[in-house]
C-alpha cells in the first residue's frame, strides 16, 4: 500500500513539476512576444510621427501651389464663381409626370388633363444648408 502511495505521489510531483515548468516557459514566451510587439508599436508610432511631419511638409501650401500651377489648369476662384445652395433652383413642387414625357411621342392631351392621383407629390427639401457665417470651413484634415 505504501509503495503505491509513494508511486502515486512521486508521479503527481513529477507531473506538477512538469506542468509548472511548462506554464513558466509558456508565460516567458508570451512575455517575450508582448515585449516585441510593444517595441514594434513604439517603433510604428515613431514612424507615424515622422511620416505625419513629412506629410505636412509635402502638403505645405507653397508646394501644392507650385504643383497646381504646373499640372492643373486651375486658378484662384473669382467671386462670380461662388454661389450658394439657395441659388440653385429647386425642382418645382410639381414634379414632371413620367407619362408626360412619353406623351410627346404619342400626344394624348386628354390623358394629361386627368386629375392627379391622390399620391402625395414629392417635394425635394434641402437636407443640408451651407452655413457661411459659421466657423471657417476646415481645410485641414
Amino acid at each position: 500500500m505504501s509503495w503505491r502511495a509513494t508511486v502515486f505521489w512521486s508521479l503527481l510531483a513529477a507531473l506538477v513539476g512538469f506542468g509548472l515548468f511548462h506554464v513558466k516557459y509558456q508565460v516567458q514566451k508570451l512575455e517575450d512576444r508582448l515585449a516585441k510587439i510593444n517595441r514594434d508599436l513604439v517603433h510604428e508610432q515613431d514612424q507615424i510621427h515622422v511620416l505625419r511631419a513629412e506629410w505636412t511638409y509635402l502638403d505645405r501650401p507653397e508646394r501644392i501651389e507650385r504643383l497646381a500651377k504646373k499640372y492643373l489648369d486651375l486658378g484662384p476662384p473669382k467671386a462670380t464663381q461662388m454661389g450658394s445652395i439657395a441659388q440653385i433652383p429647386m425642382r418645382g413642387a410639381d414634379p414632371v409626370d413620367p407619362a408626360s414625357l412619353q406623351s410627346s411621342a404619342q400626344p394624348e392631351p386628354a390623358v394629361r388633363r386627368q386629375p392627379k392621383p391622390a399620391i402625395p407629390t414629392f417635394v425635394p427639401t434641402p437636407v443640408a444648408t451651407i452655413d457661411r457665417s459659421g466657423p471657417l470651413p476646415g481645410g485641414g484634415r
Partner: protein
Amino acid sequence: MSGEELARLDGVHKQSVEIGRKRLLMGAGLFIIAFLAIVARVGDLTLLKDGYEPRQAARAQPFTASRADIVDRNGVILATSLATASLYANPHHVLDAKEAAKKIARVLPELPAAEIEAKLSSGRSFVWLKRNLTPKAEYAVNALGIPGLYFLREERRVYPQGNDAAHVVGYAGTDNHGLAGVEKSFDEQLRTSEQPVQLSIDLRVQHILHEELAAAVDKFRAVGASGLVMDANTGEIIAMVSLPDFDPHNPVGHDPDAIFDRNTMGVYEMGSTFKLFTVSMALDSGSATLASTYDAVHPIKVGRFTITDYKGEHRWLSLAEVIKYSSNLGAARIAMEAGVATHRKYIERFGLTKPLTSLELPEHGIPHVPNPWREVNTMTIAFGHGLSVTPVHLARGVAAVADGGVLHPVTVIKRRPGEAVPGERVISEQTSYIMRKLMRLVVTDGTGKFAAVPGYLVGGKTGTAEKTGVGGYKRKSNLSLFVSAFPMTAPRYIVLAMVDEPHGTKDTYGYSTGGWVAAPVVGHVIARTAAMLGVQPVDENAPEVRSAMDLNVSAPGSKRIAAN
C-alpha cells in the same frame, strides 16, 4: 522468561515507546506549525500581496516628444519634434583615431577628417562629432563598425512650413527651450503637456498673405512689409506676416531686422488711417455730423509746423469727403472741434496708448504717446502723426470701428466655438454703421480704389506716413499702408498691409502711397482668401446692398451729400 518478567519488560518497553511517540508527536506538531506558517506566507505572497505576475515586458510607451506640437486652426502642423540621433565618441575606446577619422569623413563629408582625428585623439572621454544625423547617415556610420562611436537619441524641432509663419510660431533652441514667438510664450505648456497648442492662424491665408506681401516688396523694392488678417468678431489673428523673415530652423546668424516682428514689436506712425478714429470720435461724441463741413483751403500754422493736404481739394469739404480725399486739414479741424480732452479719451479707448497685453507673443511694442499731449499733438494725431502704434493696435482699433463699436482683445490662440468673446464698447453701434459706409466710400470713390474686389464689399482707409529719420521726417521714405474690413455690410475680417519704404514704379506713375502700394495687396489677399474664410460674395448692385452702403439713407439728420 516468566510471564511476570515479560509483563514487566513489556511495561518498560511500552513506557519507552510511549515516550518516543510523544516526542515524535511533538516534533511533528512543530513541523506542522512551521509548514503551516510557510503555507500561510506563500498564500500571502502569491494570492494576497503582489498576487499578479511580475511584469517582465515594458508597456508600450507611445512616442512622447519632450515638446508638444504647434498646429494651426485646422490642425495642420506648424511645429513638431522629431527624434534624431546625435553621434558622439569616447576617444578612450577608439582604437585607431586616424583610421576611424578617415572612415567617418567618408560617410559624413561635411566633417573634415583632420578635425575628427583631433577630436578622437583628445584625452577626454566624451566628444560630440555631429548632432542630429539623418537616418541615412546614422545607418552609414553604424555600418562602419568603429568601436567607441555611440549615438544619443535627441530631439529636433521641425517647422514644416518654413518661413511662412516664422514670426508667430517663433523658434526653439537646441536645448528645446522656446526662444521666440509662441514657442517662447507657451514654453512651459509645450514642455509639460502632450496636447498641441492650437493657434488661430489659418495656414492657407497665412501663406497667401506672405506671398502677396513678398510680391509687393519685390515690385516696389521696399525694405520690408507686414500684414495681418484678423477676425473682427473675435479678435483672433488669422494670418500675420512680417518681412523680411527668417528660417526658424536656423535663426542664429540671421539679420536682427529679419527676426524683428513688425506687426507686434514695430511701432509706426500710421498716417491717414488714423482719420478713421478721428471721425469715429467726432461722430460718437456728437461734435460732428455727416452734415458738418470743414475748411480745407487754408493751411493750419501751429508754432513751426504747417499742416497742409497732400493733394488738396482746396475747398470746403464735408465730413465724408475728409475721409474720401484723406484731408489732413479736415481731420485736424474735426479733432480740434471735439477738443483735446475728448480726442485723447477716444484714442485711449481705442486701445492705442497701451501695449497689447492680451496678445500671447513675447514680442511687444509699446506705443509712443506724446507727453505732454498738447493741442498740436491732437491736430497731428488726428491724421496719424505724433503717435506710434503697432499694426496690431491699428487693426484692432479698426475692427472696433467697423464691427459695431466693440473692442475685442487680440489673440493668436484659437477660440473655442461658442466661447464668449470679451469686449468693451468704445463707440455706439450707430456710429459704427456710419463708419462702415465711409470706409466703403474710400474704396468705391476715394483713395483706396485698388483694394476693390468685386462681390466682397471691401472698405478701408489708405495711409501714407513719412518715416522719421535723423532730424525730422524723411521726405522720400514712406510707410504705405492700407487697413480694410470686409464685407462692409457686416464686417467679418480686417486685412492690413503695410509696405516699408516702397519706390514708385512705372505702373504706379511713380507713386508710392498707400493707395497705390498697399491697397492692391489687400485687394489680392481678399480676392484669394475670401472664399476660404467663408465670406459669401454678394451682388454689389443689389438694391439692399446699395441702400445699406448709401450714406444718405440711414444717417438721420444729415443733409444729402453730393456723391462727388
